[in-house]
């Protein structure tokens, strides 16, 4: 059963990747192509605490692109933060600001690093469901992503 679930999940990721690939040609600026991979969010308990979501962004175009923010109907206050852990094992979060996705490179939003913080949740993040969000990039590029909600104890896109 677990195997089947994983297979289905891989398939859905494949579909999501297909849907989420956005290409745009810009005058004088080269091709912009950002591929969204393995989006996932952790299930929440109710709506009082911020939810966390993650994904990877691959820049297959030939100009650098910056992730500048996001919109999501499920959150009245969504932003990107970065967890920093120092040499003494002390972790803290800081607003991420604009994050570069270099040409040919991948920007990973993952636990312990950059993460999407979904505050003021309008409804709980329920395991097994999905929700849409729109990633905002430099030059006005927007990509809509469908994010699967995994169990609260998920440690990565595989659960």
């Amino acid at each position, binding site marked *: 059963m677990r195997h089947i679930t994983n297979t289905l999940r891989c398939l859905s990721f494949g579909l999501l990747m297909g849907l989420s690939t956005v290409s745009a040609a810009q005058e004088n600026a080269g091709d912009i192509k950002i591929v969204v991979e393995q989006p996932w969010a952790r299930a929440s308990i109710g709506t009082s605490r911020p939810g966390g979501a993650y994904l990877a962004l691959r820049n297959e175009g030939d100009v650098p692109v910056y992730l500048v923010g996001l919109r999501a109907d499920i959150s009245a206050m969504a932003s990107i933060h970065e967890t920093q852990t120092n040499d003494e094992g002390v972790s803290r979060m800081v607003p991420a600001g604009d994050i570069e996705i270099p040409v040919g490179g991948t920007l990973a939003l993952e636990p312990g690093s950059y*993460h999407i913080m979904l505050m003021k949740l309008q409804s709980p993040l329920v395991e097994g469901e999905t929700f849409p969000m729109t990633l905002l990039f430099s030059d006005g590029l927007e990509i809509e992503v469908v994010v699967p909600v995994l169990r*609260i104890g998920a440690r990565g896109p595989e659960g």
Partner: protein
Amino acid sequence: MTNVRIILWSIVAVAIAIVGGFWISERGQLPVAATRLPAAETVLADFELTDHNGMVQTDEDFRGRWMLVFFGFTNCPDVCPMGLATIAQVMDDLGAEGEAVQPLFITVDPERDTPSVLANYIPQFGPSILGLSGPQEQTQQTAKAFKVYYQRNEDESAPDGYTMGHTSSFLLFDPQGEFVRIYEYDLDPSQIASDLQQRIGS
């Protein structure tokens, strides 16, 4: 002339080393009460806190079992759920051997994380994890004993306008309550589980 040149270059090298050193230490930023590998004798599991069932618990209540202790706060969207998920997976991996281990989550944000809030949150990760909360003063004393650092950081873009910076490593104590080691919160759970299995078995 060559000597002068050597001396001048030496001065430049020393200056770069000093400036570089400051730059590196500036990047560390946070004042530090915790060290990554604290001397075992200085870390004390000494606390009296209320668990998420409303029971007062002290460190002595857990003698005879290994204590795996994690400090955090429930409004934390990244490190804390990841750490709790790691501990829950470790306990799953341990199976019956997990009886010898008591995972504890101590909040550094007792203002928001009352025992009833913890009761609503902590068991969702795993039934064996016990959430602990206490008044500010007891929380401070506890952190001091554990050599754990935490600080409220104002952040307009966070819920209620603040987040907590805190030591994210797990601390392991043996059945006599003596500090053994730390594990990083994002370590592969199977590595922690196999390390614990060896210790429990020996």
